[in-house]
């Protein structure tokens, strides 16, 4: 067994920032990640980091834009924390040497982004995430922080009291990819999940193959509620054949969207008469698909994004990476022709319920970054707001876990304070298909009994993980990839940009069927060495839980808010729905409940207004 004060799971932007903060606060911290840190998906972020750095800008304006972008489903304390701290965190990165794009006077450049009232997006070319990730990993190396890379975390060691709010997380179970060793990682002070989003639940996604929502699924099964999972962002400009992202920076710099008739449809068809291409992402994605559905798409599939008029010099200076991506992955020369684009799954606004300090309702368990939901993004995330979330909340979680004194959070977690229980009209039974307690099928249930001491909780969780692996390796059955492919197809077909009640119910039936099929999976590779077959099989189980949670939330929320569009419910229902959707895993069965959104900020209350661009 390994032992540290703080164990950070995941080594993308949030995980690295959390580890640096915990180290600064004096904790013995270790990072455990299924990938080497520089392989993390933060590296694929292109556009930038929003921060109110200039005199003409203010954190209050950033907060207002973010709240409006969230369609009034973000919690004000989280949004204000983000916007107040982002400038300090951006300059911290700058002091760590990050290669920001610069103005003539040597200060960092900022550019306009969708939904922003001021050009406040700092960036490093069109590869901001790459620079952020590498700069932060450099700091981890400098500090000598221990990294267990290619250690895949299989489960969390959490006690099993009746109420999740009484449980405590004592560590994690890791699997060494190179050797097959299964070992406990005891965390004396806290475990921080920074494991990213569940993008692989969809088959057309900008997300990496590794984005399987492992941390979300493990914590969900251990009692942490999943919040607002129905809010999935579909990025309007992804390459049709691969899902590779074309940064919003292209539109920020002046790129224009055209339909097959050569119309600048954002204006000409009235989708966003003021902001046009720079309207919020959900607005642009729906506009594109509407164009395609009404017969004005190119090859009935996509629209064109044209940046040729920006000129070679500007494109090469600020968007060079886009030229390479379009060429390598779509065979399009962005200097010479418009690039084909269509909406693709990009980001999950929802995630593990946390407060502004990254704490979940389970003691000693934190979450930060895309896997968490504080909630900053509400129903829709603005471009340029994901990277600041990583560094602001990663740092706060790191500090808090390491015991640094911080202001108490205002956001409530778990079933405490004001909340209401609810039900969803599902056509099938949800959750585990009847084999709860079976280590394979339930993905590792809560292993401990009562408030056992840390070591015995860890030991029993490790033992359960070993049994699960043993069973998977020594049985015959179907291969997980077909189960995964079925779920991905279902989600893209039925839980996409446009959602209909019948389609959502059909999706729940198909997910149920996939869960039943998963009962029969087996791993054919018997090896202890780099057994990716085994690990992907385990990831697929995580995707099943998350696909179901996304769909349940989508069915429950019968309104149209932000990224969540319902055919039968075409208006935002503020009287009924200014509340978060929460889903708790209750003995293998998802339980739905709601909590009111917090619109009261530090000095003002945000009043829901019509969201137009």
């Amino acid at each position, binding site marked *: 067994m390994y032992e540290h004060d703080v164990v950070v799971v995941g080594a993308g932007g949030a995980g690295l920032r959390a580890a640096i903060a915990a180290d600064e606060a004096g904790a013995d911290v270790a990072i455990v990640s299924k990938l080497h840190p520089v392989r993390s998906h933060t590296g694929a972020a292109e556009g930038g980091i929003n921060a109110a*750095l200039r005199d003409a800008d203010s954190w209050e304006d950033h907060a207002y834009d973010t709240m409006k972008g969230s369609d009034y489903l973000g919690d004000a304390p989280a949004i204000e924390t983000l916007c107040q701290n982002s400038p300090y965190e951006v300059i911290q990165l700058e*002091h760590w040497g990050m*290669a920001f794009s610069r103005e003539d006077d040597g200060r960092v450049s900022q550019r306009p982004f969708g939904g922003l009232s001021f050009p406040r997006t700092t960036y490093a070319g069109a590869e901001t995430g790459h620079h952020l990730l590498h700069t932060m990993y450099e700091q981890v190396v400098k500090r000598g922080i221990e990294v267990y890379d290619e250690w895949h975390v299989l489960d969390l060691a959490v006690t099993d009291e009746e109420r999740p709010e009484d449980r405590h997380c004592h560590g994690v179970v890791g699997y060494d990819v190179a050797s097959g060793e299964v070992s406990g990682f005891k965390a004396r002070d806290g475990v921080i999940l920074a494991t990213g989003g569940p993008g692989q639940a969809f088959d057309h996604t900008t997300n990496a*193959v590794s984005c399987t929502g492992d941390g979300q699924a493990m914590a969900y099964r251990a009692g942490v509620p999943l919040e607002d999972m129905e809010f999935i962002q579909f990025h309007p400009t992804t390459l049709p054949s691969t899902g590779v*992202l074309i940064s919003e920076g292209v539109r920020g710099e002046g790129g224009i969207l055209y339909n097959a008739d050569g119309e600048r449809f954002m204006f000409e068809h009235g989708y966003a008469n003021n902001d046009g291409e720079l309207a919020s992402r959900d607005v642009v994605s729906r506009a594109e698909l509407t164009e395609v559905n009404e017969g004005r798409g190119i090859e009935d599939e996509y629209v064109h994004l044209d940046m040729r008029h920006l000129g070679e010099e500007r494109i090469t200076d600020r968007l060079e990476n886009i030229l390479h991506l379009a060429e390598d992955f779509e065979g399009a020369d962005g200097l010479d022709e418009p690039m084909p684009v269509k909406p693709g799954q990009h980001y999950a606004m929802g995630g593990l319920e946390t407060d502004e300090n990254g704490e979940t309702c389970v003691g000693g368990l934190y979450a930060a970054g895309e896997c968490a939901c504080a909630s900053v993004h509400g129903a829709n995330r603005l471009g340029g707001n994901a990277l600041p979330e990583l560094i602001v909340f990663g740092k706060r979680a790191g500090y808090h876990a390491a015991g640094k004194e911080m202001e108490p959070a205002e956001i409530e977690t778990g079933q405490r304070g004001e909340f209401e229980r609810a039900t969803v009209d599902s056509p099938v039974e949800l959750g585990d298909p009847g084999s709860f307690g079976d280590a394979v099928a339930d993905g590792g249930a809560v292993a401990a009994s009562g408030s056992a001491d840390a070591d015995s909780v860890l030991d029993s969780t490790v033992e359960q993980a070993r049994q699960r692996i043993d069973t998977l390796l020594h049985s015959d059955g179907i291969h997980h990839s077909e189960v995964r492919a079925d779920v991905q197809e279902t989600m893209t077909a039925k839980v996409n940009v446009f959602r209909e009640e019948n389609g959502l119910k059909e999706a729940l039936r198909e997910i149920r069927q996939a869960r039943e099929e998963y009962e029969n999976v087996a791993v054919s590779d018997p090896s202890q060495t*780099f057994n990716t077959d085994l690990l992907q099989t385990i990831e697929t189980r995580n995707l099943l839980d998350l696909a179901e949670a996304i769909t349940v939330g989508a069915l429950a929320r019968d309104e149209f808010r932000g990224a969540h569009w319902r055919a039968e419910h075409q208006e935002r229902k503020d009287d009924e729905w200014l509340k978060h959707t929460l889903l708790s895993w209750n003995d293998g069965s998802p339980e739905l409940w709601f909590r009111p959104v917090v619109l009261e900020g530090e000095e003002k209350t945000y009043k829901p207004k019509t969201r137009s661009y």
Partner: protein
Amino acid sequence: MSTHPPQQQSEEPAAEQSTDSAATESDHHHDHAAEPRRDVGDQTDETEHEPDANEDTREIKVFRYDPEVEAKQEPRFDTFHVPFTKGMTVLDAVIYARDQFDPSLTFRHSCRQAVCGSDAFFVNGQQRLGCKTQLSELEEPVRIEPLPHQDVVKDLVVDMEHFYEEMEAVDPYFDPDETPDGELEEQRQSRANREKVKMSTRCIWCGACFSSCNIAAGDNEYLGPAALNKAYRFAMDEREGDSKTQDRLETIEQEHGVWRCQTQFSCTNVCPKDIPLTEHIQELKREAVKKNLKFW
């Protein structure tokens, strides 16, 4: 260091291996046609049938080795016939082969868009990223091997530890003498200086350059092109102080540093991010001379 698995005796260099591998192939030829097998129970069954003549398939030959699995302890090449679709990459092809024919086929991959640097393979005799290499541009059969000059862990997975050690041996972090007092005050950098280091900051640590370098293959302690490029990134940054720059130059001009480079340009040729690695190494040599450091 060898291209081959640790226990293997063969000294066959990577370049030869790519032109003639009949010896390794003939005894252990496993042929998988384009007929998906979805059950995992019959994993050791070999399917030897020809691909459907009506289907447009591509033939790939993939290096296989697993130190633990008896049938794979002796390195071999497996042949797969993968249905071809427009835009298909080498990574797409091995994913198809894994998911449809042999789930034990093992390789690193993640982002699929040339930023995570996980999937550098030796494809038809050259280091390339699987995800950004179009199958249509390659001669058939397409040979896919692990990166030469690194120990093979399993199939296409190599041990990256040595590469990481070299990367971390050059103090790979920004280290200015001082930072501005104000928490919100920037440490300004000229556009020209940012431009100068820009290409060097694009490195994704894929290891293609290191694997392509004959010097690194012969000198186990040679820092190699990627680490030297990392040193360049900081040594050329105007925001670091003179004494730190001097330290950096001393690090890179030591016995296993820049003077080992024989300007063969193999690193520059294979770099998937188009980083002018050889040029950067040459510039470091010039800087070292200017600073009056000794030669090796």
